[in-house]
């Protein structure tokens, strides 16, 4: 009879221990508390990690500021995040876990996919107002997504701001779209093409790149043939934009290059290299190093965090600010904190001063805040400088 090797005893013991550990986890105990809970499915690892870490810090910092000032009518804010790695099923699991262990009234979601998946659950739950990292056009629909809102303009509005800028700078220009083959990328393209035509611009070509594609030279050749005056990239963070810009310049293209929110963080654009000098894009917030106007909140952030904070940080910070404002207005009106009331309070926000984080006072009429500004990259100064005034699409 073969002797069972010693290793298998250890392995067995390990497996039994692991099994027991799993089953020994206490079943949920919801903590009913005076705290107002902000739950978060945050992509702190994975492809969106640079944004997730920033968002997490932004929300946490604002919560700290509010709590240090005494909270909202004496009630403290509590921020409960979970890492999701930017995967929808992990996000949903995190949501279920956080909402089963806490009484959650405010939630931050990490992606378009998550926001859409969780919507029916949000409606059934009825207690939560949700915002997130997504600026998808589809979410900007108060009828279909009554418990959600976007902390800025949706992607179609963002490209709309860029198109308005183009129409002013060069009427009748040719604008090419280069976007990624994903939900993120495809979201605004159709509506943006229509918007371009309405502004008298032509769209000679729309190029879709497969996700994770390395070699874009065929696309660059097609782009060059279309000879656009402007090229708008959407659906990417960094790659493959630098390749397009570099090869395009090498082949003698004279197009100006533009991007949307998630490309436009200062550190991302600076990674594009010298060839991307003059890269433009839309950004609804002020950059960390912006000292062009009075911005008390920005000063506070700079005092709290001496090193550069990304626009993702600002996004998280602003989300927490709007959450707080909605909760405050609901409580001031003497209403209970549930999804409907919070959203209604959010929609009463008119000409609200964000402390300079957004360049003009904002109004949250529907599900988005269609305000933004066109910035240009100055590679020598390693900064993003404004290229237009603050544009509001309201």
């Amino acid at each position, binding site marked *: 009879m073969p002797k069972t090797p010693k290793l298998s005893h250890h392995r*067995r013991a390990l497996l039994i221990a692991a099994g027991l550990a799993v089953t020994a986890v206490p079943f949920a105990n919801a903590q009913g508390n005076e705290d107002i809970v902000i739950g978060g499915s945050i992509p702190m690892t994975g492809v969106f990690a640079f944004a997730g870490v920033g968002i997490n810090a932004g929300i946490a910092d604002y919560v700290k500021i509010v709590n240090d000032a005494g909270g909202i009518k004496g009630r403290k804010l509590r921020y409960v995040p979970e890492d999701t790695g930017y995967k929808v099923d992990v996000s949903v699991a995190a949501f279920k876990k956080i909402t089963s262990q806490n009484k959650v009234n405010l939630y931050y979601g990490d992606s378009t996919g998550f926001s859409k998946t969780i919507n029916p659950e949000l409606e059934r739950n009825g207690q939560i107002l949700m915002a997130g990292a997504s600026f998808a056009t589809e979410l900007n629909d108060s009828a279909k997504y009554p418990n959600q809102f976007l902390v800025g303009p949706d992607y179609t509005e963002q490209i709309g701001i860029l198109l308005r800028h183009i129409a002013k700078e060069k009427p009748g220009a040719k604008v090419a779209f280069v976007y990624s083959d994903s939900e993120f990328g*495809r979201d605004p393209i159709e509506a943006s093409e229509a918007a371009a035509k309405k502004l008298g611009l032509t769209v000679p070509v729309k190029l879709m790149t497969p996700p994770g594609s390395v070699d874009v030279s065929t696309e660059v050749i097609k782009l060059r043939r279309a000879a656009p005056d402007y090229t708008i990239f959407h659906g990417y963070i960094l790659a493959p934009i630098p390749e397009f810009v570099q090869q395009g310049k090498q082949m003698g293209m004279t197009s100006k290059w533009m991007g949307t929110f998630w490309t436009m963080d200062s550190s991302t654009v600076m990674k594009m290299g010298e060839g991307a000098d003059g890269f433009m894009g839309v950004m609804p917030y002020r950059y960390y190093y912006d000292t062009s106007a009075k911005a008390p909140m920005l000063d506070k952030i700079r005092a709290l965090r001496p090193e550069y904070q990304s626009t993702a940080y600002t996004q998280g910070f602003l989300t927490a600010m709007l959450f707080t404002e909605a909760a405050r207005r609901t409580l001031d009106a003497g209403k209970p904190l549930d999804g409907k009331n919070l959203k209604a309070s959010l929609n009463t926000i008119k000409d609200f001063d964000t402390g300079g984080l957004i360049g003009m006072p904002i109004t949250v009429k529907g599900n988005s805040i269609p305000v933004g500004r066109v910035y240009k990259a100055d590679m020598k100064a390693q900064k993003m400088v404004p290229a237009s005034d603050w544009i509001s699409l309201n």
Partner: protein
Amino acid sequence: MRIGTLKQSYTADAALFDSRTQKVWLVVGAALLVLFPFIASDYWLYLACLVAINVASATGLNILTGYTGLVSLGQAAFMGLGAYTVAIMQTRLGTPFLFNIAAGGIVAMLGGLVVGIPSLRVKGLYLAIATIAASFIAHFLFANLKLTGGTSGLSLPPAQFFGLPLDTSFRLYWVIVPVMLLMVLGAANLFRTRVGRAFIAIRDRDISAEVLGIPLLRYKLLSFGLSSFYAGVAGGLWAYFFRVVTPESFPLLMSIFFLAAIIVGGMGTILGGIFGAVFMTMVPELLKLVVDLLPGGVEMTVFLSPVRTVVFGLLIVGFLVFEPHGLAEVWRRIRRFFHLWPFRN
């Protein structure tokens, strides 16, 4: 200690559960399953439903890869076929949910038959790569057809059971777990029949099987069809559970997950499919627990996702190197220990 199991008829010999202890444990298990939803929190119910769906799909893959020896990396694509079918039927036709799920299984089965056609010409790893190709073609269709809602996918209203919407994990548990149990029982029974034995013969040596008179193409196609039916039903349950189906919901990584699940659990055993699916679904939770317990707070969570990836890979490599027969083998050893006690060998 088990001394002897005497059987007096062929039916008794072929029975699935032959000892009294097994039957007692079965009753206890059933009682626990019935009791579970009343004592568990929403989060654990959610996990339980997810585990059940994964068990159903892993069992299907086990039929194809573990028992018939045809490596397939298309399980997620077949689940996608089932899920989309259910989504389309629920949103456009409003037919009852059990009907939709069955239809989803059938559509996935048809897909499986199509994918299985090359299996006579290509074998082994070439077949695996052909299934990867099939999975990409399916993804392309999901993302580009108007019918499937393109990249934004489809969202569907909850299943209706005589007017009662099945929109919580608690309610869905009562649909998902019985369906899963039926499917697992069906698979276990399959391998007591001639068809099941033919599958095993094909896995061991398909040329010899053909010499013995087993028509290869027919049985290989049957295996593909069955396993994709299982995947389709699991996909349909998935659709009712998450209520949003997008092309990104069924990536190649999911197929790899299922393949890893049956390897870790033990290929070629029904128990292996169950163990593997449960283990692989619960490992991320266990990891989260461990990371929570470690000192370091939020900074540690930054490592959670890559650590999860590394652990996933380590599990596959570890089990293949040290325990190629998987958790089922470990379980068998535990059982043998108890059967032989107080003797050692």
